[in-house]
């Protein structure tokens, strides 16, 4: 069967998908054994069965290399069937490495000569002492096994799309009812009461439907962790560096879209940590650090957001080098060096800016961290970096658990209505113009005794700045880096739930626009990235009309 035929064959697609799932289970088993869980005969038999399935199905599609690799791994594990507890760490590592190789063979089946089977590689099991393990737990009873079916992702997505359309239609219907029954006679009152009950039930059911449909798409981040593990194994196999990878929170579930979009950025950040963060053992020892470097990957849920922290105890990022490199690349740093609160390290998210001394095969081309920011922003999330020279670097990615329904703030600017994700909004306030202070061409807002930068986005937006009522101002306080920024708008309208949609293909894309949605009136509304807008506004350096001399 030719490779081009296989690509069109839905049964082959099914086999490949199933095989990859089985390999995930093999790796999961290895991870649990590596962390001290007992290697029970049942668990080992499961792994052998998975490999046997892959081997048999590969033969059906004449994938000789995949078949041979699966067979070799089976042969390696069979001697442990009667002595599962003797499986040592080196043996487990071998199983993981071979599972990675089978995965690669499946992925690149059309690039590998299919008719030259790889000879059986008799790899001797390790003679190392097996790891001490806990006592085996009682086997799971058959009744606790959950019944599952495979559903094409497209069907799940269709269900979700219809749910969101119903959500939007419900909003519009609700608005129409309220608009047309505004008068308060008894008949209307009774109607509105009944409508409230039905509307409340509709909202509840739509919410349940959405949860159920979204639940079908949820995956644990362990899928990303597996990729990260693979990258680490591959890197460390050819490097003199010694690194311990610490994983936490791999069972946190997020939307499949988030997993798909996050995988590459996280792999990139880990590569950077290994390649440019962690030092060689002798360098670490000379600077008083342990020989083995540590890279940790922690995922946790914080409200309606998931937070992923990637940190290393390597050499850290030199902020001065970042500034120098930014200047050399011609990036507009707009007085950032004079601003003590400026997020200098945030410059590393600019495309082309790499402060790596050398470009390696792994990283250093400066085209990765901007892609990280882009991918995270597309999901309505944020990424920031904190680093201390000589101590290490931490990247914190925060993204909404659900990339569908967005908690948003509606606001007015220059007569137009816009929305922004509430994820980075800390506070909304109305203030007097007297609470703004000018210091050296910068405007600051007095937020309960703390002066924070204040930026007016209205001049950066289309339309004329509304000059009415300049005494009272509306501010949206946004978290940025380690501090806050007050963003001035014309008026804050209300908090809404929106379905965030991607802009149509022929629409104008701009970095300040995350997408659009439909309001209850049927009117489209742009969803803006306030952080990007604030930076744009800062670059334009607009002043407020009233200047007050005030020493900070």
């Amino acid at each position, binding site marked *: 069967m030719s490779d081009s035929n296989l690509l069109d064959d839905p049964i082959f697609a099914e086999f490949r998908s199933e095989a990859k799932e089985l390999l995930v289970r093999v790796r999961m088993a290895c991870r649990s054994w590596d962390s001290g869980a007992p290697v029970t005969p049942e668990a080992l038999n499961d792994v052998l069965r998975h490999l046997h399935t892959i081997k048999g199905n590969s033969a059906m599609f004449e994938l000789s290399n995949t078949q041979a690799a699966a067979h070799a791994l089976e042969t390696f594990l069979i001697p442990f069937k009667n002595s599962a507890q003797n499986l040592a760490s080196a043996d487990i590592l071998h199983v993981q490495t071979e599972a990675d190789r089978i995965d690669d063979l499946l992925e690149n089946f059309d690039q590998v000569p299919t008719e030259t089977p790889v000879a059986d590689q008799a790899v001797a099991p390790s003679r190392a002492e097996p790891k001490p393990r806990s006592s085996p737990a009682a086997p799971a009873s058959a009744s606790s096994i959950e019944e599952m079916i495979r559903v094409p992702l497209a069907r799940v997505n269709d269900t979700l799309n219809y749910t969101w359309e119903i959500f939007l239609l419900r909003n519009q219907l609700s608005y129409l009812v309220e608009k047309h029954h505004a008068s308060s006679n008894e008949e209307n009152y009774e109607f509105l009461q009944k409508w409230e009950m039905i509307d409340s039930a509709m909202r509840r059911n739509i919410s349940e439907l959405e949860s159920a449909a979204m639940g079908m798409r949820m995956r644990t981040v362990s899928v990303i962790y597996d990729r990260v593990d693979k990258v680490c194994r591959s890197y460390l196999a050819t490097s003199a560096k010694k690194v311990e990878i610490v994983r936490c929170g791999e069972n946190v579930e997020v939307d499949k879209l988030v997993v798909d979009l996050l995988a590459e950025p996280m792999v990139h950040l880990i590569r950077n940590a290994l390649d440019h963060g962690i030092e060689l053992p002798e360098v670490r020892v000379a600077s008083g650090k342990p020989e083995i470097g540590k890279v940790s990957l922690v995922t946790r849920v914080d409200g309606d957001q998931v937070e992923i922290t990637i940190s290393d105890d390597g050499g850290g990022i030199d902020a001065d080098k970042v500034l120098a490199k930014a200047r050399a690349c011609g990036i507009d740093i707009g007085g950032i060096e004079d601003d003590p609160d400026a997020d200098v390290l945030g410059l590393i998210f600019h495309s082309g800016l790499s402060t790596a001394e050398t470009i390696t095969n792994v990283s250093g081309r400066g085209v990765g961290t901007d892609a990280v920011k882009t991918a995270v922003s597309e999901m309505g999330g944020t990424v920031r970096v904190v680093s201390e020279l000589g101590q290490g670097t931490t990247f914190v990615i925060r993204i909404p658990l659900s990339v569908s329904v967005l908690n948003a703030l509606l606001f007015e*600017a220059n007569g*137009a209505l*816009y929305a922004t994700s509430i994820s980075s909004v800390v506070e909304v306030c109305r203030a007097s113009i007297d609470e703004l202070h000018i210091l050296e061409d910068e405007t600051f807002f007095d937020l309960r005794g703390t002066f924070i930068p204040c930026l007016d986005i209205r001049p*950066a*937006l*289309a*339309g004329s700045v509304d000059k009415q009522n300049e005494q009272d101002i509306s501010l949206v306080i946004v978290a940025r880096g380690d501090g806050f920024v007050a963003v001035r708008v014309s008026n804050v309208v209300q908090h809404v739930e929106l379905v965030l*949609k991607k*802009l*149509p*293909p*022929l*629409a*104008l*894309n*701009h*970095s*300040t*626009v995350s997408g*659009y949605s*439909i309001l209850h009136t*049927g*009117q*489209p*509304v*742009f969803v*803006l990235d306030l952080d990007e*807008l604030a930076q744009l506004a800062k670059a334009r350096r607009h002043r407020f009309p009233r200047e007050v001399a005030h020493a900070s």
Partner: protein
Amino acid sequence: MPLSEIFEQQREIEGAQSRAGENSITMLCLDTGSSRIAIALESAREVVEHPHIVGYPIAVKPHVGLANVRGSVVPVVSLGTGECKLNTMIVLESAGKQPFALLARDVRPVILKDSNITANSRSTSPTSGVVSIDGRPIRWCSVAWLVQRLFGGNDSVSR
């Protein structure tokens, strides 16, 4: 526009077209704000008068904003250069089946009897020419030509 009026117009156009015979084509003649052009009527999905358009927060010509056309949100563009008010929106579809809307005014159907225009105005390639309508030179064009002029020939725009 009431449905009865739409059906009436449709009957009039069909009647005029059948009287004109083969090799005739009904074009929509419109003022884009910078010039008058004619596009094949069958290329237009919809003509909306006095559309409600939500402008881009940061506008870059020829992009104007988004409009909700019976539940579908389409990007709106304009070739206009002056201050003239363009009060009509023609919804078109690119070769890649992507809808967009062109702002215009003074939109009216015109029947042309020219086999060259008949053949090429429906083309998926960027084609255009000049024809005389009411004694004035008017550019006729395919939707592909418009797409090339507005979007540089790409079916997606990114910055």
